[in-house]
């Protein structure tokens, strides 16, 4: 081993201990029953169990709704932040990003308290509100980044060629900012699928999401089934990531944080 590549050794050990080993353990546990024998029953159990499937479908639905909500609110916000004539100060950008500095759990608990104080019944509405509040910065920031770095001469060229202000946006600015939107989707959609704390606190456990049932199984020492559910989720996340990577290979370069 050459001198320089030996510098990578600590990182290599770290990765093996904290990334590779847990993944291997998840896979191993998924295919074992409680007594340690090889079995497919954990996987088949999920696909046979109506409750698990409907929870899974609900999680995806909530994730899609939350992502859509984040785009609807986040895109205009990012656009305003990146427009030098509307926003002259970097402070406003920081204000939008600042919630990311506070622990998500604390924000969620605080939000739940606010709803209780206001006497609003916890349910799907409050769940979406909380999720959107938690994940909005992850949508705004990549879009803001792309819009902010975008060469102004593209918009000017469109205007020069006869595009009205709205056409400049729909035909040039919006398509060119799609890499940022793609990064935002990646950063909002996937964590939303696996979240459990937000649904627990903001619906009083009335609505169970996929993350919730994984957590419940593991809390109840049903390690093998919990591992199998985690594996299924990992595979779905991997598939969406790969699909998106193919879809937009430059997305990460321009849009990722």
């Amino acid at each position, binding site marked *: 081993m050459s001198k320089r590549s030996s510098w990578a050794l600590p990182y290599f050990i770290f990765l093996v201990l904290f990334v590779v080993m847990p993944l291997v353990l998840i896979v191993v546990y998924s295919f074992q029953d409680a007594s340690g024998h090889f079995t497919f029953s954990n996987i088949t159990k999920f696909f046979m169990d109506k409750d698990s499937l409907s929870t899974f479908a609900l999680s995806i639905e909530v994730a899609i709704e939350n992502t859509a909500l984040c785009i609807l609110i986040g895109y205009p916000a990012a656009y305003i932040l990146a427009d030098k004539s509307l926003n002259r100060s970097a402070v406003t950008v920081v204000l939008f990003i600042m919630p990311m500095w506070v622990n998500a759990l604390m924000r969620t608990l605080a939000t739940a308290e606010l709803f209780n104080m206001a006497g609003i019944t916890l349910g799907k509405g409050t769940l979406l509100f909380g999720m959107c509040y938690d994940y909005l910065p992850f949508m705004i920031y990549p879009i803001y980044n792309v819009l902010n770095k975008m060469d102004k001469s593209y918009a000017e*060229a469109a205007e*020069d*060629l006869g595009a009205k202000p709205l056409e400049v946006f729909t035909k040039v600015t919006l398509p060119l900012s799609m890499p940022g939107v793609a990064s935002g989707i990646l950063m909002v959609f996937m964590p939303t699928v696996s979240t459990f704390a937000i649904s627990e606190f903001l619906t009083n456990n009335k609505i169970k999401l996929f993350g919730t049932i994984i957590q419940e199984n593991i809390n109840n020492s049903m390690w093998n089934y919990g591992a199998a559910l985690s594996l299924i989720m990992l595979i779905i996340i991997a598939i969406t990531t790969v699909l998106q990577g193919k879809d937009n290979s430059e997305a990460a370069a321009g849009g990722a944080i």
Partner: protein
Amino acid sequence: MNETDKIIEVRHLSKSFSGKKVLEDINLYIRRGEFLTLLGPSGCGKTTMLRMIAGFLQPDEGSILLEGKELAGTPPHLRPLNTVFQRYALFPHLDVYDNIAFGLKLKKTPQEEIDKRVRRVLKLVSMSDYEDRDVETLSGGQQQRIAIARAIVNQPKVLLLDEPLAALDLKMRKDMQIELKEMHKKLGITFIYVTHDQEEALTLSDTIVVMNEGRIQQIGTPTDIYNEPVNSFVADFIGESNILNGTMICDRKVSFIGHDFDCVDEGFGEDNPVDVVVRPEDIYFVDKEKAQFSAKVKSCVFKGVHYEMFVDTDTGNELMIQDYDAFQPGTEVWLRIEPDDIQVMRKERTQNTFDGEVIDNETVRFLGGDFKCDASAYSSGDKVKVEVPFDKVDLLDNEEEGESYGNVIFILYKGDHYHLTIATPEGEKVWVDTNDIWDKNDQVGIHILPEDIHLRKAEGNE
């Protein structure tokens, strides 16, 4: 000239950015079908002017007329002009065809018409068969062609080009220059071209507008500008030149580098200080009996087509000479300058003049500093004009040691000394003649001896 020949007219145009004037009282007209170049160093205001014509910037004062109609207030998308941007600004999410068709589609042109016109311009820029290519896979030169095609497909009345060749390598640039010129001939559209490259301007233009520090210095054909620069800035910026201090003895007779020469200039008065420009290719090596003066060769460098030599004249001035024959350093040579090749220019200024205020008997405040001098003839608080000869301003390495300080912004070599322009932080300019060598952007202290400061009562002062 016929009024209808003017396609664009610019009147008293001024523009400032955060208090700094970038354009000051620009007046100019552009003839229909003409290839006009705005030429000047970076920061001279040429791009600002182009962007105002395109509509991306609004003038502070003055107006821009297109075919007699005021353009101010018309947004860029309604102006019948198109721009070729410096870095092309081709839309990366569209292919070549869609980039070119962008403007036509917005105007709801029928599909067959779009097809026909896109194909025609692609042929014009020699890029047929590239329709389906992704613009990011094209080379710089190819992107340039597509950018031009995208603009001219809309058949604009005027095509604006913002340093379109700046990003290309030398060989490519030369080829594109020829093609642009041909395109201009074929299309018959008016071109307004912005560049800082004087050679490009001389090659391409019908008319050149030389700009510096927000003002037009000279407007003329390339030959006019090259052969008859109106001031030392133009002479120095366009081509190589020897710029020398001289004295106009009488009409058709001028003295410089310690000798008297016949020239063709008249109307500069008698015994008046002038600037004299002699192009390096206009100084001839001749036999002793035909010579006007002698010199000693200092250096000789081969430049491909010609040799570039620096010589010291018998009176101690340095001259640059370009010739097909080489003379080795140390050689004694005999030189001659023909009357036609001497360009005499009025001096823009003969001394520094500042606005000052008397502080007390021996102190005057100007250029943001307190200078010692004899002010006993004035009372404190008087506003005065301060006059200082160019060669009496001392520049100091340490800016703290001077009464004031500034940046070197322009350097002109005048054969036996440097003529520097210093800008103080408040934007005032100080001109200095010196034998010391300074670099552009050097921070210098400004010191003036008390006896070299002359005071004059400011006008309108009771």
